[in-house]
């Protein structure tokens, strides 16, 4: 009986080893070099954002080509900003990579503030992301400008990467069109230079933003002309 069990056990190990070896994908040198290149680029941009903005808390930037289905927010727990392929694939230049990273940096830096070493802040961000989204977008604009990146890239990046829901009144997140309008207004208020000397005017994503934000931009014009300081209810 013992011999039979031993034989079956040995057979199982042999089968497992064979299957495992067969299914293991060989990673080529070109893939490793490509990953290293993207990792370096992401780290360089991320560290420049941290240094230029004097953000004195630690965080790291990790490139991961395997997209995760779980939304675990490692930025809030381990202070590790993960740039998955599904996020980075929308970026077409360094400014747009900076736009993605600046938002995540802001969120991660926020997880350092408040009681219990920022644990409560992290729970709040995780439980009520809608409250913080527009705030992170605006701070991302500040971070990008300080680090020498064009903040309009945040508009083009968001326009390409974030989908548009039907409603947001009872949802956990804001409508992307609303966030875009707030970013646009914020850039107008604080950094009008970039709108006056608009390098993105011929960018397809920016043109699409202009096309899809006519009503919101009209609201902004009315607000500015009336001299009102009240927040506009964008759609």
């Amino acid at each position, binding site marked *: 009986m013992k011999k039979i069990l031993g034989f079956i056990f040995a057979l199982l190990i042999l089968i497992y080893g064979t299957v495992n070896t067969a299914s293991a994908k060989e990673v080529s040198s070109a893939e490793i070099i490509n990953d290293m290149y993207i990792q370096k680029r992401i780290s360089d941009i991320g560290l420049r954002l941290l240094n230029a903005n004097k953000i004195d808390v630690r965080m790291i930037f990790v490139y991961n080509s395997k997209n995760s289905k779980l939304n675990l927010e490692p930025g809030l727990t381990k202070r590790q900003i993960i740039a998955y392929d599904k996020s980075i694939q929308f970026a077409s230049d360094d400014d747009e990579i900076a736009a993605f990273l600046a938002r995540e940096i802001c969120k991660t830096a926020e997880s350092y503030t408040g009681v219990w070493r920022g644990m409560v802040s992290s729970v709040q961000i995780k439980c009520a992301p809608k409250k913080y989204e527009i705030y992170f977008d605006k701070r991302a604009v500040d971070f990008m400008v300080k680090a020498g990146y064009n903040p309009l890239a945040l508009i083009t990046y968001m326009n390409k990467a974030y989908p548009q829901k039907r409603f947001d009144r009872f949802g956990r997140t804001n409508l992307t069109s609303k966030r875009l309008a707030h970013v646009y207004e914020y850039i107008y208020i*604080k950094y009008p*230079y970039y709108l006056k000397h608009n390098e993105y005017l011929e960018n397809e994503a920016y043109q699409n933003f202009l096309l899809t934000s006519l009503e919101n931009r009209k609201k902004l014009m009315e607000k500015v002309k009336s001299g009102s300081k009240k927040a506009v209810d964008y759609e």
Partner: protein
Amino acid sequence: MNRLIVLLAFLLLGNNCFAIVQDEVMDELLKDIKPAKPITNLNYNYESFNCIPIKLKITEKITTKKDGIYDNQPLTFKVRQNVKYNGEVILKQGSIVKAAVDSYLSRGMNGIPAAIIIDNYHIAGIDSAKIKGFYKKRGLNLSLMVYPIKWALTPIPGVGSLTNFILGGNASITEDDTVTVYYYPDWGKIKESSPID
């Protein structure tokens, strides 16, 4: 021939003109404005830790209550006490420091507090790149109380959601608050050895 050239020129230029949707809103709003290029901070060198604290107080109270605050709202601070560097007074008590609201967060459901953020200061005679002064003032944070109650009540259908109506506290900066910014006089000095150059 001339007509042909004019026609070709029109088609070439016209094609470009019609392809771009102009940002008429900004054209209208910025037509008489010549905005300055924003200041970046790229020539940094954080080797030195020699730092001088500058204590400030706001001249006029700001609060997140009832639209009492907006982005880029100008603020005025006064220096609380003389600031010395190498035995010399570089900032006298009562000197004016200009700043602006960098951003703010209105209060939210489940006890999330409002917050005011100030990060940029303009102090006469001091390079803003050598100042570190991120300041964040929060309102009363009720989340610590609200979330445990919420989670305890969640098994009873619909009851846990009632805590959504508990709002956090408003934030305000008054004359009693001391905003401390740090001046690092030697930051950015050693440019030759800087790895970013």
